[in-house]
């Protein structure tokens, strides 16, 4: 893996207008607010957060499927490069071949009226990537094999398949245009554990095989810990911490990351009840608290946190954290749970 970023965002923000007042400034929801990340080429980049954290919106913004209010996104795969916040139509069409999305729900994502072959071939036809039916068929078979789909099944309709098989079909469709960048949004969340492991292993194998870069969006920290090289944690539209996976799990520095980790139910029946509990719930993004967005639930919040919003600071090798008190808390023995 080299370290040139495939995608680099600077202060990326996505705001949605709320039903407007007649006079005065239009109220907005800051779904994503000033997020700056570098996604290294060939990496498996994890993005975690609870519902309402803005992780899905961020992923969509990178695909230019959400409106960008301000900030920049730079895409550079060595062959072409774009400033995604201002690309024109033609470049955007080209970019869509290089960036694809795998959805969460394999039952909703596949048309029940199309055969598996047609589902996988559709992007090729829409983007005009193949010239003849033979070429399309060859490409579909090649990618279906990579995704461990039975070639006999290409003539069937999706209803005949289980959740795991359907997700493999979705993956094949995303890969058929030979993209460089994949956004996988909760791609294993709807699957049973025994199948989930299979799909995760497949994604990892394909990523290494085809040299892809993944943005892996998930609410499940243990899945992220096992698949991703680098993790970013979002809370209420803000990036709160980002670090290489090992560093993040060995020593989470933001109180929210720590709480999130300790909330995962341990498989050890004797390891009960010593977890640090967060009180309350994630505030509404239409009415975020002043200062640090996490202060309403943070066990370590002080007056300063309630007034001034922290910015990302360097907290180690490739490790950034957005908390006023991270150093102090570390010295106080804010050990990971």
């Amino acid at each position, binding site marked *: 893996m080299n370290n040139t970023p495939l995608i680099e965002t600077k202060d990326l923000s996505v705001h949605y207008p709320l039903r407007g007042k007649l006079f005065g400034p239009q109220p907005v929801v800051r779904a994503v607010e000033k997020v700056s990340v570098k996604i290294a080429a060939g990496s498996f980049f994890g993005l975690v957060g*609870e*519902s309402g954290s803005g992780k899905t919106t961020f992923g969509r913004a990178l695909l230019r499927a959400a409106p960008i209010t301000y900030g920049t996104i730079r895409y550079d795969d060595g062959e072409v490069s774009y400033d995604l916040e201002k690309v024109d139509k033609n470049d955007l069409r080209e970019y869509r071949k290089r960036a694809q999305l795998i959805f969460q729900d394999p039952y909703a994502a596949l048309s029940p009226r199309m055969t598996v072959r047609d589902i996988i071939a559709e992007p090729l036809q829409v983007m005009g990537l193949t010239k003849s039916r033979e070429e399309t068929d060859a490409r579909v078979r090649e990618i279906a094999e990579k995704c461990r789909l039975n070639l006999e099944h290409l003539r069937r309709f999706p209803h005949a398949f*289980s*959740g*795991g*098989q359907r997700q493999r079909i979705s993956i094949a469709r995303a890969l058929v245009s030979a993209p460089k960048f994949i956004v996988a949004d909760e791609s294993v969340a709807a699957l*049973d*554990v*025994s*199948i*989930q*492991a*299979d799909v*995760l*292993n497949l994604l990892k194998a394909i990523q290494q095989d085809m040299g892809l870069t993944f943005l892996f969006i998930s*609410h*499940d*920290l*243990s*899945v992220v*810990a*096992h698949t991703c090289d680098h993790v970013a944690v979002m809370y209420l539209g803000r990036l709160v911490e980002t670090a290489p*996976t*090992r560093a993040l*799990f060995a020593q989470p520095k933001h109180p929210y990351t720590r*709480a*999130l*980790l300790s*909330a*995962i*139910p*341990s*498989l*050890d*029946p*004797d390891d*009960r*009840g010593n*977890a640090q*509990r*967060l*009180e309350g*719930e*994630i505030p509404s993004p239409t009415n975020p608290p002043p200062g640090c967005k996490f202060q309403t639930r943070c066990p370590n919040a002080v007056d300063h946190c309630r007034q001034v919003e922290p910015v990302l600071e360097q907290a180690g090798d490739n490790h950034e954290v957005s908390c006023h008190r991270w150093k102090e808390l570390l010295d106080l023995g804010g050990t990971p749970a």
Partner: protein
Amino acid sequence: MSRLLDVDHLTLQFDTDEGRITAVDDVSFTLETGEIMGLVGESGSGKSVTAKSIMKLNPSNAVYGDETSIKLHIDKTIDIMPLHGSRALKVIRGGAISMIFQEPMASFAPAISIGNQMVEQLQIHTDMNKKQATELSIEMLARVGISDAATRFKQFVFELSGGMRQRAMIAMALSTKPKLLIADEPTTALDVTIQAQVIDLMKDLVAEFGMGIVFITHDLGVVAQTCDKVAVMYLGRLIEQGSVRDVIRNPQHPYTKGLLAALPRLDDLDAPLVPVPGDIPSPLERPTGCVFHTRCSVAIAGRCSADIPQFVNVSDTHSAACHLVEGRVS
């Protein structure tokens, strides 16, 4: 502790257009007062249907087996299988047994305030008057950690956040003081930090009210943190059961072992994720013999596909149904 629930030889089939489908096959378990039992399995394993059978909540095309017997021991023993009709079942539904569902948004009526729904069920199941029922409902809402309970009491379900809805659901389920609570994936739709809160709450309430809980989930971590004992289901059959420590630390059935190996663990990031090979067979094509043999890597050719394995005791508190498990035949 005293025996609260006996489920014996529960078999349940559904009549469908494609034929009769077996959803639950000869499932037996017991529950003591004050005990939390985890019922674990993947989609299609029959765990929800098993739990619903305890309240006879399955749709009308459900056919119960002849040997099926479900007995609830409260002041007297209630034999549930012979009960028919909503009037006869009123004793258990919402009275002696309450249920919490996965999606609280779908379980509350959208156009009736939370308070009115809570009061209504109290008036049906107890002899409280409206004033008493209102007082108790507000008290229960406060008890489950909802701040400003009197205001929330008047609100509608869409005005509450996800975690708060699930708390309100729990408050409503517990206000009739049920002896048995059936919780069907109560934390699955919640974020982890909220899930942790709800699990703590449920454990506190069991300690306080002393009821028994059947806790349905697919998450073994939640089981380890919540339950006293656990029963693992696969394709309608119980394949392993025992105390949580026994089953999670010393799994015997290849399927339980497979589930644990497939789980990403935070204490060992280098451990590979080992999937259970293959897919769950369609209920229309139930395997003969051991239901798991089609995906089992250690199946004995000829034997596992022909003979249904019986439960053998691994220890006094642990048993598994697999031909490869050595133990005392129970």
